[in-house]
């Protein structure tokens, strides 16, 4: 069966390649000829992340934010527009490495918004850093990424250690949980976040388990959670599995709190779990709600409502655009500009430390209530 799997990867990669060629041609077609002397025409901002695939909803949110920022910019700078090239990794670290090679080979790309997920960030970081391409991730939260010594890697979102500590605080102080069962998937993100939750909870951890991405039947995990007598559980991973796990737990009679992180903070979670099973679930994210007028502007450009990471990718794009405005036309100048950048975006105050981590971030708890994920009124966790 190994052959089949390899073939699948091969086909998927070549399909992605084809898709790219198509995207590339549409993306660059709207760059107009330079008219003013200081305009470098055809500057492009790239995105690398999952816009399709099992967790593609999150990448769509990011692309929407980038499009909005570019739309604003290009309207104001019609004589020197910036183009956009999305690269769809489907969230797969292996596919992302191939795309990363294409991205660094494209001289028009001044900066990268992304990579979207932690796994693909770790698999592509070396390529981007060797090529000196500055990147700002709106969403990759694994702690180890910024410990790799990649000088061009930045993120505008709090990392998993901050979020893990906040989750533990919420479980202890707000939910008053006595016994917590911690489950993670096998992704860099899920394992990392669950690890920080575990260390934050200490002796409250009643048991742990680890499941596989793509798994659909969690009966052994469900039995383990129930028999541990846990009154709360935390899942580190993405909504596809989180939804099914929540559903199967409730079906088996689990009554405690279901909690998960930003990878599950999407309306798809409620859809997959079913409204009844998802009810009362708490999903945390190192991202607050979008400002009131942001969503209206977003919908005017994207025809769908904004979601998790939309504000972060909007801000990340705006940092690059500010750099372009400041005349930073090569990778090294742009990277210095980002490193020194301070400002306040729609997602909050932005400034980077020497590792590329955002200096200040807040973690919010979102609740599923009345069959819907309430994205507008999250509770900040202190």
């Amino acid at each position: 069966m190994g052959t089949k799997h390899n073939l699948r990867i091969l086909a998927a990669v070549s399909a992605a390649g084809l898709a790219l060629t198509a995207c590339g041609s549409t993306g660059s077609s709207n760059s107009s000829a330079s008219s003013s002397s200081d305009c470098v025409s055809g500057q492009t901002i790239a995105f690398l992340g999952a816009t399709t695939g099992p967790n593609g909803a999150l990448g769509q949110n990011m692309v929407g934010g980038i499009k909005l920022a570019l739309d604003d910019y290009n309207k104001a700078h019609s004589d020197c527009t910036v183009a956009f090239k999305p690269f769809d990794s489907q969230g797969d670290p292996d596919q992302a490495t191939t795309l990363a090679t294409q991205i660094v080979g494209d001289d028009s790309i001044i900066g990268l918004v992304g990579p979207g997920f932690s796994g693909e960030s770790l698999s592509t970081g070396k390529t981007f850093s060797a090529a000196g391409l500055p990147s700002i991730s709106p969403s990759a939260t694994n702690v180890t990424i910024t410990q790799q010594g990649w000088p061009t890697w930045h993120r505008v979102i709090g990392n998993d250690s901050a979020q893990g500590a906040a989750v533990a605080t919420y479980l202890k102080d707000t939910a008053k949980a006595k016994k917590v069962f911690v489950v993670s998937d096998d992704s860099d993100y899920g394992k990392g976040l669950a690890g920080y939750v575990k260390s934050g909870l200490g002796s409250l951890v009643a048991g742990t388990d680890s499941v596989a991405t793509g798994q659909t039947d969690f009966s052994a995990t469900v039995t383990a959670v129930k028999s541990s007598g846990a009154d709360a559980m935390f899942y580190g991973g993405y909504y596809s599995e989180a939804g099914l796990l929540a559903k199967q737990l409730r079906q088996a009679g689990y009554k405690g709190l279901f909690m998960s992180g930003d990878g599950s903070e999407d309306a798809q979670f409620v859809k997959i779990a079913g409204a009844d099973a998802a009810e009362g679930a708490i999903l945390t994210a190192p991202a607050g709600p979008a400002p009131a007028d942001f969503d209206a502007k977003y919908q005017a450009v994207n025809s769908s409502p904004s979601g998790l990471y939309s504000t972060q990718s909007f801000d990340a794009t705006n940092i690059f655009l500010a750099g372009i405005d400041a005349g930073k036309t090569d990778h090294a100048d742009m990277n210095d500009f980002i490193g020194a950048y301070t400002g306040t975006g729609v997602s909050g105050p932005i400034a980077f430390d020497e590792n590329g981590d955002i200096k200040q971030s807040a973690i919010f708890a979102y609740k599923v209530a009345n069959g819907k994920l309430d994205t507008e009124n999250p509770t900040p966790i202190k």
Partner: protein
Amino acid sequence: MNFAFLFNNFFELTITGLALGAIYGLVALGYTMVYGVLQLINFAHSEVFMFGTFAVAWVVVFIHGTDSATQGLGPTLGILAIAFVAACLTSAAIAALVERLAYRPLMRRGAPKLIILISAIGMSFTLAEVMGVRDKLAGWFGLQVRLADYVSQARNVYSSPITINPHGLFPIGNYRVTDVDLLIIGSAVAMMVVLDQFVRRTRLGRGIRAVAQDPESAALMGVNSTRIVQATFLIGGVMAGAAATLYMIRIGSTRQNAGFILGVKAFTAAVMGGIGNLRGALLGGLVLGVAENWGSALFGTQWKDVVAFVLLILILLVRPTGILGESLAKARV
């Protein structure tokens, strides 16, 4: 190794494992039947199953709408019956399509088996990708908006809006067996028995066995082997449709690549039970499902595939032809 956990929850782990294994077994029947007749692994069978899961979800959306609802098995039986028929028809149609496009033209030209194997793999990708771009396909016909409930976000998870809550019926040990468990295990066993009897007792079944034993002699005796092969694919498709219905009752969500992992597991189950052997396929499925759950309990869920495949290797070391080991051809009346 957490033996205490396994023993304290032995019945729950075993019964939920059997329910999972029953689904593996039904899908495994499709692999095993095609192998029995053609000595080929039909790699596109996982997509036959995947189309069945979508048929179930579409029927539920069509009848019920997209509002999320949770209800017991009883009130859902009507919709499920229609979904079952739709899934069997869809899967059988896809299986027939696979046979017509990926097998028959090559077999007619006497292509080597390896070539046919590769065309089946190609068919598998094609079918999965067709499902993954179904929104674009609908767009070609201008139906993207009208069919939005069925085709939008084609590569994302697609869920049945009705969640079926299992209802505990009677206790075994410290576990209350639910109606869903019983339905899944019961219908899988029933379908297997019917299929087994069909192959043993009917004229078409005799034809299948004849082609499995010796295609040339069967042709000389007046058996139309093309029709037999077609019938084999259709029957395998119906079984995959049944498996898809049970899968959607239990899991409730699917996606364009949902067949892949399940296909690998079902293929493993078929090999474990003895590929080419109908009873072996179901037995292999049940053993695999239970082994996964026990393995998860002992070592943690991340080890379940290791446990399942070590078990497969051990079984094949002792019995190289699988647990029951007898091929479709040798099944006696």
